[in-house]
């Protein structure tokens, strides 16, 4: 304890005057309609261990900035961006001002060139339009990080010894355990957002998390592996159980390791050609909601901006031909995205300085809204709802899920199960494969149990479900009251790909889907 903080998030305090100057400079540029600057700093301690041996111990401090500029002639205004890291020497006074000014110049230059090219190509491409941002209320605010045990006060040796202890114990749960790996980190992030419209935001958050990989093998059978993640927007206290699972990282890892060892001796799930009754539990539904409700309700995806990468959305074919106001799910399904909830998608202002708020996506089965940005809100003639985020300041913000969930119903999950004469209980998400417009999915589960006369009987591995998304959502006939918002640490989107943390959740659901499993072997 009592370490000297050499280059930490306090360093950003002195950066504010340089950022204001840079914003003033952007305002002075000819035909520059808008600019914003994000400057961030992350301090983390990261450690990893496998099978009780140390592998990584790192203390990192990263700072970077990103500039967005809209400039050009009024009919062809275009985006220009620039980003780079900031070193210790660049974070204060004139050095920062100089670096930011150079960044603004580069972004401005790109926007101006692009605006000219847009003009030249308009005959061939009549839909080329100037960038428009939906208006928002301008905010000035400071949001402090919340934690009990300051991540900066945790020595790297302590982080490492925690990781070592966890993998040593996880490896020992059974003779079948072949591999236990854990990567854990604790840290603080602070981000400043200033814009030519006058926004001045200073937000910070703590993050403590771990990703676990366990592999077990029984004899010469196919090894069984499982990856899972635990964490929260908190300090070191998360390791001891102050997280959404209410479990210490150790207990979480041991539970996953025991499950994996048990599964190594289980049968592979047989697949079915026809849909069967499935009850999906909250951990599985976390990923299900992410893939078939969250992603297709991101406005940039719906507006085809992700066509080359993560795909489109079956919910919007054209601006005048879409599913708004139509039934896309069972009337029992209500889904929303809410950054004010606790979870990995929690924040007060997004990366455009827009206050985050609850967005109703599906209400009693009817499509109601999309998560959006200021630009996509302008195109859709909707109000911005504060859903733009970037993994770090040197990335361009994208429309992102926040805490995107299916709302809880009123059924006891146990009752939902006990009413099933014959069916399958789908437990813990594993890997998703989703079709291009999110209209179909195949998703694997860690465990699948046969349900017979309301009771769980046989355990299977290597199984999952597949269905067209609408068909599955429409088939839901029971929704549990057991919603939890779980962390999804690795949502990939954009080019270059950004890996983002989001919160997702869904209570216990009962519906119909085909089982996937052994027919592929």
């Amino acid at each position: 304890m009592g370490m000297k903080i050499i280059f930490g998030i306090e360093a950003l305090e002195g950066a504010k005057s340089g950022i204001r100057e840079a914003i003033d400079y952007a305002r002075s540029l000819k035909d520059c309609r808008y600019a914003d600057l994000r400057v961030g700093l992350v301090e983390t301690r990261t450690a990893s261990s496998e099978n009780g041996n140390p592998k990584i111990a790192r203390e990192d401090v990263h700072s970077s900035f990103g500039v967005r500029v809209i400039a050009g002639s009024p009919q062809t205004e275009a985006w220009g961006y620039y980003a780079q890291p900031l070193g210790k020497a660049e974070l204060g006074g004139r050095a920062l001002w100089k670096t930011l000014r150079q960044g603004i110049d580069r972004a401005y230059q790109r926007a101006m060139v692009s605006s000219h090219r847009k003009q030249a190509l308009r005959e061939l491409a009549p839909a080329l339009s100037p960038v428009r941002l939906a208006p928002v209320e301008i905010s000035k605010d400071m949001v402090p990080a919340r934690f009990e045990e300051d991540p900066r006060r945790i020595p790297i040796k302590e982080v490492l010894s925690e990781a070592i202890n966890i993998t040593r114990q996880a490896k020992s749960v059974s003779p079948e355990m072949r591999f236990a790996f854990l990567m854990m980190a604790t840290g603080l992030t602070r981000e400043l957002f200033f814009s030519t419209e006058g926004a001045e935001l200073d937000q910070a958050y703590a993050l403590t998390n771990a990703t676990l990989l366990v592999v077990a093998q029984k004899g010469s059978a196919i090894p069984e592996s499982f990856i899972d993640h635990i964490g929260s927007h908190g300090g070191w206290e998360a390791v001891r159980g102050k997280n959404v699972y209410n479990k210490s990282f150790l207990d979480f890892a041991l539970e996953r390791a025991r499950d994996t060892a048990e599964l190594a001796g289980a049968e592979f799930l047989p697949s079915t050609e026809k849909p069967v009754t499935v009850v999906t539990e909250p951990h599985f539904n976390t990923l299900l909601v992410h893939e078939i409700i969250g992603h297709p309700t991101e406005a940039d995806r719906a507006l085809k901006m992700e066509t080359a990468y993560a795909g489109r959305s079956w919910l919007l074919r054209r601006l005048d031909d879409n599913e708004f106001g139509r039934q896309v799910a069972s009337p029992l399904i209500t889904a929303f995205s809410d950054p004010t909830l606790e979870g990995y998608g929690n924040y007060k202002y997004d990366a455009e300085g827009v206050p985050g708020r609850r967005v109703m996506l599906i209400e009693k089965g009817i499509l109601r809204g999309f998560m959006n940005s200021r630009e996509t809100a302008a195109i859709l003639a909707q109000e911005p709802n504060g859903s733009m985020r970037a993994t770090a300041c040197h990335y361009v913000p994208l429309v992102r899920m926040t805490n995107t969930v299916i709302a809880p119903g009123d059924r006891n999950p146990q009752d939902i199960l006990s009413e099933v004469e014959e069916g399958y209980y789908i437990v813990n998400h594993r890997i998703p494969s989703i079709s291009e417009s999110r209209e179909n999915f195949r998703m694997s589960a860690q465990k699948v149990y046969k349900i017979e006369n309301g009771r769980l009987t046989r355990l299977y591995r290597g199984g999952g479900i597949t269905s067209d998304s609408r068909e599955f959502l429409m088939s839901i006939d029971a929704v549990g009251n057991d919603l939890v918002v779980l962390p999804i640490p690795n949502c990939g989107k954009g080019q270059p790909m950004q890996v983002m943390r989001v919160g997702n959740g869904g209570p216990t659901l009962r519906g119909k889907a085909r089982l996937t499993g052994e027919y592929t072997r």
Partner: protein
Amino acid sequence: MRLEDLRECVQKGLDSVKQEKTEIEVFASWNELVTMRLNYTSDIPSGGLHEPKSSQFSGIAVSSAFSNKGKTSLGFGSQANELRPRGVKEAFRKAKRGRFYDPDFRSLPSPMGSPTLVDYHDPAILDISDEEAVDLGWKALEGALRAFQEAGIKESIIVGGDVCILKELVAIKSTTGIDTFDVSTILTAAITTMVEKEGVKGTGWATSTKLAGFDPALAGREAALSAIRTIGGKRLPPGRYEVVFGSQPITDMMANVIAPSLSLATVNASNTPFLGKLGQRITSPNLNIYDDGSLPGQIGSKKVTCEGLPTGRTDLVQEGNLVGFLANHYLGRKFSSNVATFVPRNGFRFHGLGRTYEIQAGVFPTNLVVEGRQEATTEELFRGIREGVYIGRIWYTYPINGLAAGDFTSTVIGDSFLIKDGQISTPLKPNVVRINDNINRVLQNIVAVGREKKAIQVWSAEEAVIAPEIRVEGVRLDSIAAGTA
């Protein structure tokens, strides 16, 4: 940034922290990724070149092995955006503070042969202006739109994708004798187009390590023509089919399922379908797979790895037999024995934006080459197929039940056709077919491997796959999205 500055930084930095009984390696990198991301939609207001952007990264990493009383402790420290000796000192302090005993660690890398690929970058790419870079993006868009115009298509057009420019400079010096540097330049254009009301999607690629001859307009045009070719697609009943996979699906399967299984990283985790199969047959005898980071003109090529060792060819599968795994120095030493050695040609510090100082070297492919022992012409590849499917682009390919199980799934999203009597016939409607199969079975059921190859990079991967078309029998295809596609 000048290479000379990086070299001076590692030289002076190493001198400033050298001490007895300690192996030290200093790694310095600077890179810039310039991305011109396209978004044109004919029926929705759009920007055309939506994101002209770039990001730079530079910094120092120090790896140290501290020996004390016969035990060696390993430490790693890095310093962001600092390319001066004082940054090396700070990174060294972090390495020392966090050092630990790792029983698998043997030593830091030592020199191992000479690189064969030297001076292969293009100075014109290092010096490219913002205006030239932005122009490359607009050229890709124009190439696609001109092709649509020539075909009389004005509505329901989507053009997406990107043109990327990656510039990388690294310098490495160590007390174990490594003293090297590398400069690489990469250009890629990956363009996707759609005529949405027809439900068709097409793709076009261009890759190069030199600016001269790089033609993003051609990639745009190829993408548009590819979409146009598949207008009028039909659905397919579920079943097992004889399939000819195009270069992109082979690339996607390689990047997401096969290459990770051929790495010592997954051997280390007991999480590969090829565990314990070294020397055994794992694919059709007509298949060879190797990785070669020293191939001239290929975008996955480097002079040296991020451990300062020469790149080169690593044979992985020869005539169907598993003969090797991709290795870095750390895992190569851990797993080498008197019956198997693993040459560390694949230790890279990739993080999605080029080589980075932030992390230690993991195991990454460079240029993965897939070839046949006997290779077929396109005509020979299709000959004898009475009813089959040509699959030209797949998406979201994942080892759905974990890597070791080999099960994978994927959806067919464009560039695909039905095959009738040995000929390409009706287009296959995009987004209505899901592949559900097992990679072991697909590799065993290869019927023929094409001669023509294409270098392709998949989204977010660092490596290139130089992939032929491959014919496989009995591939399980399911019909999906009856209500929405």
